[in-house]
């Protein structure tokens, strides 16, 4: 007979540390699940671009805080104290370089976060206010760049900032008056530098932190956005919820560490050097050029039509672009989030990204040069046309052809599609990745050769005969891109069986 007497549980010996932890845990709720768990599919760098931008902000706060110990925001001492950091402070150049490059990374990550959000429709109900908050945070980030650029008081930074301040006057009212009052003040150099410093180290960080808390709160309320194709398209494993700590937190630690090491590596390869000090006497010898993130706006303003009297028109147009982005959730109110069904918005977004990139690179290559109207129309129009064509073809191939490939049957004629003889059946996902990669490559090459061809034609038109060999190479490259695109279309048709089906349909019709 079995002994049924219950044995009282033996009291486990708990160490002092464990008891202390338990005491704090029961009072502070350390082990409680404070943050909403995230789905497994969010373990993807594209879901955490905003978090990486925050990491960049933290690195800037730390490096900037150290630099504040030495920097004096006065026109007579700003340059010398910056120079002191470079020359005399331990790892001073490294600090300055990291501070600048993380600022660049923060702006780039914020832009990528914005465009990724746009393409996957995170601005739709119920995340409209998250989008607006994120846009304001983006403006604050640009404000960091603008205000921080002046602080070293170099010839480059002061001249570029003066150009920027001059442009503020041409902005639509009351924005022009407000911004000019905010950054210029009495108009003296000392007042201007002090205002920029205060904005850079006190006002903007405080505003950003408040907005960050607001956005985190909304993220907690709504959670991570679903994939555009819906949760139904994901496996059970991908849909599973995982805790923020340790799973998501460890993943973010990995991303942050990789990001940090990448920035460090870049700063070692391209260390910063301090340009000469600003002096009104030599300011005229330098071509004023804003930093790269404002170059696209600067390039628009260099178009002949927008000079002098046309400046307010151009700045109003740029302001309208930003305003449209802010109120996007209230313009694009449809429920459809699937990229496949949003060809217009996706194409518009792609055109915007391409135009910004083209204008920035163009601005970098042509400092201080006025852009003739016809050249601007050719390049900007050509870019928009090329992106539109590529978008249409990509939609046709990726969402038209591959859908049939995934289903394994025809959607329009009922004839089964089989892979060609000898072909290894590829998974739809692998095929989609391959085609997308090929198209991105062709798009980049096509944009490059088209831009080059247009520039060479313009140069030839202006009488530069040396552009002829370059034009020949560009046209050859363009022809290769066209042939490559046609080959890709042919291969895809071969894989999906469209050509064979069409021939079969034609034969049936002819016999009938």
């Amino acid at each position, binding site marked *: 007979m079995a002994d049924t007497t219950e044995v009282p549980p033996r009291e486990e010996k708990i160490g002092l540390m464990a008891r202390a932890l338990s005491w704090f845990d029961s009072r502070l709720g350390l082990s409680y699940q404070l943050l909403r768990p995230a789905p497994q599919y969010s373990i993807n760098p594209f879901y955490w671009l905003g978090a990486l931008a925050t990491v960049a902000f933290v690195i800037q706060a730390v490096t900037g805080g150290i630099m504040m110990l030495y920097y004096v925001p006065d026109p007579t001492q700003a340059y010398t104290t910056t120079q002191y950091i470079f020359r005399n402070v331990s790892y001073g150049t490294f600090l300055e370089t990291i501070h600048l490059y993380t600022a660049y990374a923060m702006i780039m990550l914020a832009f990528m976060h914005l465009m990724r959000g746009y393409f996957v429709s995170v601005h739709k109900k119920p995340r409209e206010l998250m989008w607006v908050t994120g846009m304001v945070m983006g403006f604050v980030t640009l404000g960091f760049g603008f205000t921080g650029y002046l602080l070293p008081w170099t010839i480059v930074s002061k001249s570029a900032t003066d150009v920027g301040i001059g442009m503020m006057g041409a902005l639509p009212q009351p924005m022009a008056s407000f911004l000019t009052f905010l950054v210029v003040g009495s108009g003296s150099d000392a007042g201007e530098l002090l205002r920029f410093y205060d904005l850079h180290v006190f006002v903007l960080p405080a505003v950003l932190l408040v907005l960050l808390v607001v956005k985190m709160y909304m993220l907690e309320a709504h959670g991570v956005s679903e994939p555009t194709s819906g949760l139904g398209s994901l496996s059970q494993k991908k849909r599973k919820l995982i805790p923020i700590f340790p*799973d998501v937190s460890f993943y973010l*630690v990995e991303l942050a*560490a*990789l990001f940090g*090491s990448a920035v*460090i*590596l870049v*700063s070692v390869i391209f260390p910063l050097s301090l340009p000469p000090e600003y002096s009104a006497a030599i300011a005229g010898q330098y071509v004023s050029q804003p930093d790269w993130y404002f170059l696209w706006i600067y390039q628009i303003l260099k178009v002949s039509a927008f000079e002098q009297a046309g400046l307010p028109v151009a700045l109003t147009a740029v302001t309208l672009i930003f305003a449209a982005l802010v109120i996007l959730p209230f313009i694009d109110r449809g429920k459809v989030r699937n990229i496949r069904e949003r060809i217009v918005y996706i194409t518009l977004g792609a055109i915007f990204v391409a135009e910004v990139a083209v204008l920035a690179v163009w601005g970098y290559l042509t400092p201080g040069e006025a852009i003739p109207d016809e050249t601007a129309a050719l390049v900007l129009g050509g870019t928009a046309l090329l992106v539109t064509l590529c978008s249409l073809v990509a939609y046709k191939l990726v969402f038209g052809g591959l859908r049939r490939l995934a289903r394994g049957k025809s959607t329009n004629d009922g004839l089964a599609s089989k892979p060609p003889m000898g072909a290894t059946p590829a998974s739809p996902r692998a095929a989609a990745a391959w085609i997308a990669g090929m198209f991105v490559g062709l798009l980049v090459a096509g944009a490059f050769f088209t831009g080059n061809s247009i520039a060479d034609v313009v140069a030839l038109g202006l009488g530069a005969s040396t552009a002829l060999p370059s034009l020949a190479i560009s046209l050859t490259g363009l022809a290769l891109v066209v042939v490559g695109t046609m080959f890709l279309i042919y291969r895809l048709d071969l894989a999906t069986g469209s050509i064979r089906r069409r021939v079969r349909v034609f034969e049936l019709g002819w016999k009938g």
Partner: protein
Amino acid sequence: MSERNTVVTERMSLRIVSLLLLVAAFSVFVLWSVNPVGSGSESTFALFLAVDLIAVAMISYIDRAVSREGRISRAALIAGCFFIGFLVVGALYLVG
């Protein structure tokens, strides 16, 4: 995944993590001992800081991958080790 394979992965991950901890400890030692005013010391400092960060990222990845999926991506490990090796060689070159 079979239990035997999981055990093998866990054992292997333990060895790799031990090695990474050694690398991280060595790089921290270098960070503290490098002469802050010497020529090229900034780059050496920066590169060993990057080594430390990569080691931390790899340890975190291994822990997450083993506890969640029971396996580690060989490609990720090789890439990480290659990157660490590249940074260490670069830093030693600067010191030399």
